[in-house]
């Protein structure tokens, strides 16, 4: 059985309950308190400590009758790709596909090398400090500052960090519970379920919206490029780039043959050049 998320952005109300529910269930710390000035989005992007992230896309003019006015909201999450870049890059086997067909990082096996971070075409995976204690129980300014230091990227490089991202609430699924974000979503913008059934439901929804004249389509359900279908896919009404999603996500390994060839060619050329130089020196 494969499970996943269908996120219908047309009924997202931007309440960010998913972000909070995710952090609460997974005992993730806040990422700090910086004002971004980027619409109502102050958490910026998915990270090792933000596994659901609601982006706000303002497409408005200040004219009172702005006919084209839109404020798009979209709850982003790990895509749990069919061909997962992070999994391919992982040298320790820490990233696996679990019994629900979700891409899962085993924190106890991860050595914090960070190869997965650069191999994710969506920029989802991130490193965080290895912390076993739940960190929000006695929150105060002191623990907060400590945490900020812990999570700052420079402190993490090569210091026993661990890759972290959405687990699709593996622990909840194992006991038959719906993942925290989907459970908290008040409008069912985030739907959890068996992937085949979700796709079916999603295509019906697309048809219905298209009948109403909305340019709705599914992102990640039509075999997008080399990453294959996404187990967390989205219903969008603008081009993927508007939501900060790659139009054609590319699995880094697909670039490997070309990389090897160019490396071999470079090596050959350099050898020839070296020979030529040495010859000349004689």
């Amino acid at each position, binding site marked *: 059985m494969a499970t996943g998320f269908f996120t219908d952005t047309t*009924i997202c*109300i*931007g*309440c*960010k309950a998913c*972000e*909070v529910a995710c*952090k*609460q269930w997974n005992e993730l*710390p*806040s*990422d*700090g*308190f*910086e*004002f*971004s*000035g980027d*619409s*109502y989005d*102050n*958490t910026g992007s998915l990270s090792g400590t933000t596994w659901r992230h609601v982006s706000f896309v*303002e497409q*408005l*003019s*200040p*004219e*009172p*009758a*702005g006919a084209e*006015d*839109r*404020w*798009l*909201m979209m709850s982003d999450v790990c895509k749990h790709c069919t061909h997962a870049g992070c999994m391919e890059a992982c040298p320790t086997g820490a990233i696996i596909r679990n019994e629900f067909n979700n891409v899962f990082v085993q924190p106890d096996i991860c050595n914090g090398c960070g190869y997965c971070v650069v191999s994710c075409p969506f920029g989802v995976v991130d490193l965080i400090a290895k912390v076993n204690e739940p960190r*929000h129980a006695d*929150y105060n300014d002191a623990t*907060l500052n400590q945490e900020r230091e812990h999570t700052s990227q420079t402190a993490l490089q090569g210091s026993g960090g661990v890759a972290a991202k959405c687990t699709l609430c593996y622990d909840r699924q194992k006991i038959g519970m719906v993942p925290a974000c989907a459970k908290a979503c008040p*409008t069912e913008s985030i739907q959890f379920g068996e992937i085949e059934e979700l796709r079916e439901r999603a295509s019906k929804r697309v048809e219905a919206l298209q009948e109403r004249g909305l340019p709705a389509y599914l992102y990640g359900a039509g075999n997008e490029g080399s990453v294959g279908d996404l187990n967390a896919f989205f219903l969008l009404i603008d081009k993927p780039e508007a939501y900060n999603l790659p139009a054609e996500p590319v699995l880094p390994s697909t670039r490997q043959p070309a990389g090897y060839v160019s490396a071999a060619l470079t090596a050959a050329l350099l050898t020839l050049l070296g020979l030529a130089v040495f010859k000349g020196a004689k």
Partner: protein
Amino acid sequence: MQAKERGSKIIHVDPRYTRTSALADLYVPIRSGTDIAFLGGVINWVLQNERYFREYVCAYTNASHILTDKFQDTEDLDGLFSGLDEPPRVSDSLPSVVMYDRRTWKFEREGNSIKSDPTLQHPRCVFQILKRHFSRYTPEMVESICGAPREKFLEVCRALAENSGRERTTAFAYALGWTQHNTGVQYIRTAAILQLLLGNVGRPGGGIMALRGHANIQGATDIATLYDLLPGYLPMPSALRHEQTLAGYLKNHTKRTGWWVNTPKYVVSLLKAFYGDAATKENDFCFDYLPQISGDHSELPTMFAMKDGAVKGYFVIGQNPASSVQNAELARAAMERLEWMVSIDSFETETASFWNREGVDPSTVGTEVFFIPAATVLEKDGVMVNTNRMLQFHDKALEPQGASKSDAWFLYQLGKKLKALYAGSADAKDRPILNMTWDYEHEDDRERERGEPSVNKIMQEINGYYTATGDQVKGFTELADDGSTAAGGWIYSGVCPDKHTNLARSRTGGSGVSLGWGFAWPANRRLMYNRASADPDGNPWSERKKYIWWDATSGRWTGADVPDFPIEKAPNTPADPNAGGIEAHSGADPFMMQIDGRGALFVNEELQDGPIPVHYEPLASVTPNLLYKQQHNPVLRQWKRRDNPYNGAVNPEYPYVLTTYRITEYSGGMTKHIPWLAELQPAAFCEIDPVLAAEKRIRNGDWATISTAVGEIEVRALVTGRIKLLSIGSGERVHQIGVPYNFGRLGFAHGDTSGDLIPLSMDPNCSIHEAKALTCNIRAGRRPRRDAATDPIDLDVPEKERTSEGKAMLHGTYHDFPHENPTCG
């Protein structure tokens, strides 16, 4: 969203383009503070284009009632009603209070009957007066007052008319953007008039929904946290109204006709619940134990009195006035004049630590502050009453942290300690405390040991019981005025119909109105005045909108809900104007609580500031009133003091509209202590349009300082096209600035509070402050800091500026006061 998916059209009218606007079918921008002009415009359009629901209006509203010839409308007096004498009548003790003499706002009577014209043609009938009153609210006028594009306004009018009538209904939902105004009550009145004209009251899918600011605001009002109410919307006795005896009180507050003929039953039962066996017929059921109000003791006047030294002690339970009230610095300075303050909260609030703030040397503050840690909602049993009047019980999910206790524990133990302190006293003045029924010992041993009271027992007392047997009453119709019943809050009667049942706990869902889920007062009725969902003959207005109807075979009202009508009173029952109570209503008068059984398009004496709503500009406005000579609500309360300065009308120093609101991420000012919420909105900010930002050289994300006559705050600027550029009048551009109010000095998301910008001024009906329609200026950069050493806060206000409430409290002099009639009940 579900309604929208099922085909409902969602319209959002708001000064800002919000998340709600993004999901709505139609967004209409509006200048803050002009909703009465907008709704008045819709009313005018509905009347001029004959789009009202004529049968409903004729049968169920007071449209046909005829006014006396003494009544003069704003059309006659350029923005004023009759009754405002020249010079205006003011109170002896309160020179700033101007009041209407409301005796001319009455219907003409013939004996006990109100004169009426069923053809609605009489020039002094409510319908014609309404038509004339709103005739100047044309679409052109709406556009130039509100700044809402005319085409969008007309689209709203058409949508409302198309979605009302026999087959369809329209609902209004509002929040504090409608209430927190100097004309707040009249905002809701305007919507009520429109909904009555469209036939959308008492019918499924209709109505006007108040979206409350907090989870249990409805319950707090029901069981009377307001100074002028007793539980169940019974007025507090007043020293100013000749009601020092039970008979005097009942005379003032028992209506001859309509449901309020039952007032004595509810009052006597309440006194029996309060004072138990000590309350007897002979001693007026201890009526004289009740405190008598002697003026306006609501929050705003009390704050001034506190600042002037007339208040010694202050309990603050789950509130944070130092951060979330208007003129917050006045509140903080007022607390310096207290002898003691008790703050009960889950977090240390700005109020509990008001003494430790910018510009103040803590060593100079003499107030003794007690901070009592409070359990959160998950850590205690209790009941929430939501906006559709539904009681839902919640069980304690985990033990309170550390030393924190429930609020109920605090009050119960305080009561017990007071009783112990007064034990043995023979002094008459101590009897109210000694005779107070105060036995809520918990059923559970462990909880009892901790001193927690039993919420169940409290609810059973509120529900009511027979004093002889102790058995629960099954509903308020069983309550009596002879002392044989007791009930702590008559409107909740029926929630605990026996000792083993608490309907607030019931969780039977199901389709339709789900009568098995929770308990909605009164009598588990989900839709009030639902007799109006059937036509005068008792048949549903349409199959599609079928709800409650008359079943002629069984001779009863029946349907999806609990009928809000005497169950066997046939639709053709004639009214008997000489009878009392609801016998005076016919079988086709749905509005049982009203004297005449009709929906009030026109109110008589219930409101202080007019029988029909009028568009006035807010006290601080960027424009003259385009409709009348009268600029602002003539009877609003204001306090002209140096610590409460006003921007004034059309002041070029404050050229921008300022509005405040909360944001989704926070509930009031307390949730900024939760890091997961604080990271979502980490700093106090303002929302401004790109044109103003460019003009003022404020870049997105930069600091900006907003100023009013009251003070300055610094916030981060969010420059956005969601704030619309409006044109009003003959094309003058209006910039609006929005500031969320949720911030303060403490918590993970810090920032100045919008409360430091707003002077106190007050609606005359229910003492609500103005916090939504104001003016301000803005500049780039941060504000200067205040230094306690060089610029200490001046606590003293000259004697002549002090408010009369404070003086009255200090010197015990009470004279005349606006509250000669109960208002907000």
